[in-house]
C-alpha cells in the first residue's frame, strides 16, 4: 500500500513571542500514514498531537524536515489547494467550525469554494448529511442543535469536499456515549466501505480498539507504534505518559498483579470476560487434581 502522508525528519517549534524562547514541539519525527489505513493517535495534553495533525494539511508548516501529502511538499504553495482537498480536518469544538445559519448551506460551504457545479453540490451535501445521519435536519439552524449533532454537521462539511484522507482532532470529546458511537461508526464506515484514510486523535481509549494502528505520542516523539493489542499491553509505559488504558486492560493488569495468570490483550468486554472465566476454570481444575 502506498503512503498518503509522509513526514521526514519533521521538526516544529512555535515561533518565539516577545521575551520568550521558541517552544519546540517535536524534533526529527519520521512517520508514514498508509493510504486506506485507520490510525489512532493518543497522548497526554500538550504533547503535540494537534500540532502534528495540523502539519498534515498544511495549516502549519514544518520548521525543519518535510511533510508530503501524496508526494506533494506541504510547504509548496503551488500544491496547497490540492493538499487541502486531499486531507480534510475536523476539530474538537464544532461551534468553531460552523459558518452558516442553515445546516445544508454549512455543508455546502467547502464544495462551493472549490467551484463544484451546483447540481453536484446538491448531491454531495445530501450524501454527506445521510452518511452522518443528519439528513432530516438539513433545514435546521445549527445553533439550535446539540453538540453531538453539530459535530456530525462539521464532519459532513468535510465529507462534501470528498477528501481521500480525513484527520479528526478529538471529534468526540464533547459527545455522549451514543453520539460518540455514531461518530466513530461513521468514521469506521468511511474507512472500511469507502477506503478513506482516517487519522483520529482521541483521549477515549475505547475508540482505539478497532484501529489498524495506534500511535502513542509524548515528550516530542513517538513512544509506541503498533496494533491496539501491541500498544495497550504496555500498561506501565502508557501510565507513565499519563495515558489511560481501557478499563478491561486495567482490570486484567490488577488481577495479574494479584497473581492471576491472564493475558493483557483481551481488549473487548467479551474477550476480557472470556479470559477471566478461563483463568478461573483452569484454577478449579488444578485444585481438583
Amino acid at each position, binding site marked *: 500500500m502506498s503512503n498518503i502522508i509522509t513526514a521526514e525528519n519533521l521538526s516544529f517549534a512555535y515561533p518565539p513571542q516577545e521575551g520568550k524562547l521558541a517552544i519546540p514541539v517535536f524534533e526529527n519525527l519520521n512517520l508514514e500514514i498508509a493510504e486506506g489505513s485507520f490510525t489512532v493517535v493518543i497522548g497526554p495534553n500538550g504533547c503535540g498531537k494537534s500540532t502534528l495533525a495540523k502539519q498534515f494539511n498544511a495549516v502549519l508548516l514544518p520548521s525543519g524536515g518535510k511533510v508530503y501529502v501524496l508526494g506533494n511538499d506541504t510547504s509548496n504553495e503551488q500544491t496547497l489547494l490540492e493538499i487541502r482537498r486531499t486531507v480534510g480536518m475536523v476539530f474538537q469544538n464544532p461551534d468553531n467550525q460552523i459558518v452558516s445559519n442553515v445546516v445544508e448551506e454549512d455543508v455546502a460551504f467547502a464544495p462551493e469554494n472549490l467551484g463544484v457545479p451546483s447540481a453536484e453540490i446538491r448531491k454531495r451535501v445530501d450524501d454527506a448529511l445521510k452518511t452522518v445521519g443528519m439528513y432530516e435536519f438539513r433545514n435546521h439552524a445549527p445553533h439550535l442543535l446539540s453538540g453531538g449533532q453539530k459535530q456530525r454537521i462539521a464532519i459532513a462539511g468535510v465529507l462534501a469536499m470528498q477528501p481521500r484522507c480525513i484527520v479528526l482532532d*478529538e471529534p468526540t470529546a464533547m459527545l455522549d456515549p451514543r453520539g460518540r458511537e455514531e461518530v466513530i461508526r461513521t468514521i469506521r464506515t468511511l474507512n472500511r466501505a469507502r477506503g478513506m484514510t482516517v487519522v483520529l486523535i482521541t483521549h477515549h481509549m475505547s475508540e482505539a480498539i478497532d484501529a489498524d494502528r495506534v500511535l502513542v505520542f509524548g515528550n516530542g516523539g513517538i513512544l509506541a507504534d503498533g496494533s491496539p493489542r501491541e500498544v495497550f499491553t504496555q500498561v506501565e509505559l502508557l501510565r507513565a505518559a499519563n495515558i489511560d488504558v481501557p478499563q478491561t486492560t486495567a482490570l486484567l493488569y490488577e*488481577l495479574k498483579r494479584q497473581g492471576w495468570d491472564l493475558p493483557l490483550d483481551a481488549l473487548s468486554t467479551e474477550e476480557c470476560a472470556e479470559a477471566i472465566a478461563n483463568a*478461573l476454570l483452569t*484454577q*478449579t481444575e488444578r485444585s481438583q487434581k
Partner: protein
Amino acid sequence: MPPVIEVRELTHSYSVGTPFEHVAIEHVNFTAEAGEFLALIGHTGSGKSTLIQHLNGLLKPNSGTVLFHGEDIWKDKKFTRTIRSKVGLVFQYPEYQLFEETAFRDIAFGPKNMGLSEAEIRQRVLRAASFVGLTDRLLEKSPFDLSGGQKRRVAIAGVIAMEPEVLILDEPTAGLDAKGRQEILSNIRAYQKAQNATIIMVSHSMEEVAELADRLIVMKNGRVDAIGTPSEIFRQAEHLRAIGLGAPQVTEVFRLLREKGLELPADTYTLAYAVKALCRFREGGGHA
C-alpha cells in the same frame, strides 16, 4: 429542613411561538442535599444543560419551580441575584471564558461582583486557588499562557471563589488527559468535603460517575428516567444501553461472567471492587 435544591415539575421549551419550538425538559423533579455528590447523565440533547441552567436562574422555567432551601429562586429580583453566587455553575470548556490579564484577576471577578472587600476578595482567591492546586507563581501569569488543564482549573477556581453552596459542573473533565482528569476530580472532591457543598456534575463517563457519585440522575428525552445510587442504576445495564448510555466496562464484564454461570455480584461498577470480588471468588473456589 428543606433540601438545598428542590426542583418541582420543571418544564422548559425553546423558541416558543416559532416553527422551531421544542420542549427541552418537562416535569423534572429531584432534590439535592448538603454535601451530596449528584451525577447527571443522559444522551446528547436529553436536557441536561437546560436543566442545570435553571438551577442558578440563568433560565426561567415555563412552568414548575426551583427551590433553594425551600424558597423559590424567582420570588424576587434580589433573591435571584444572590442565587447566582450561592449556586455556582461551571460551563463546558470554561477556559474559553477567561479574559483577565492575570489568573488572579480572573478568579477575583466573581467575588468582586459580590461587592466584597479587597481583603476578603484576596483571601477567597487564594483559598480557591489552593483548592484547585494553582501556585502563587501561576496566579500572576496571564491565563492565556497556561496549559489547557491549568486554564480549566483557573476557570473552576473563579466559580469556587464565590464559595457557592452548590457547585454545578458541565463535563469538567472533557478533553483532558488521564492526569488532568484525576486532578480536576480530586479538586472537586476537596471542595465538596471542606465546605460540605452539594456537587452536581454532568458527565458522559460512566466509569467516572461510578467512582464519585452518591446518586445518579438519568435524563432521557427531557424527562428524569431514573434516580438512584450507582449500584441501583448500573444494575439496569441493558436499559442504560437502550437509552444510549451504557455502564462502566467492568459492569459489562461482570454481566458476561454471570451469564457464563459464575456467581458474582451484579452491582459491580468500580475497578477496585471488581478486583476484590474476583479475588474473593477465586479464593472461595468458585463461590463469592
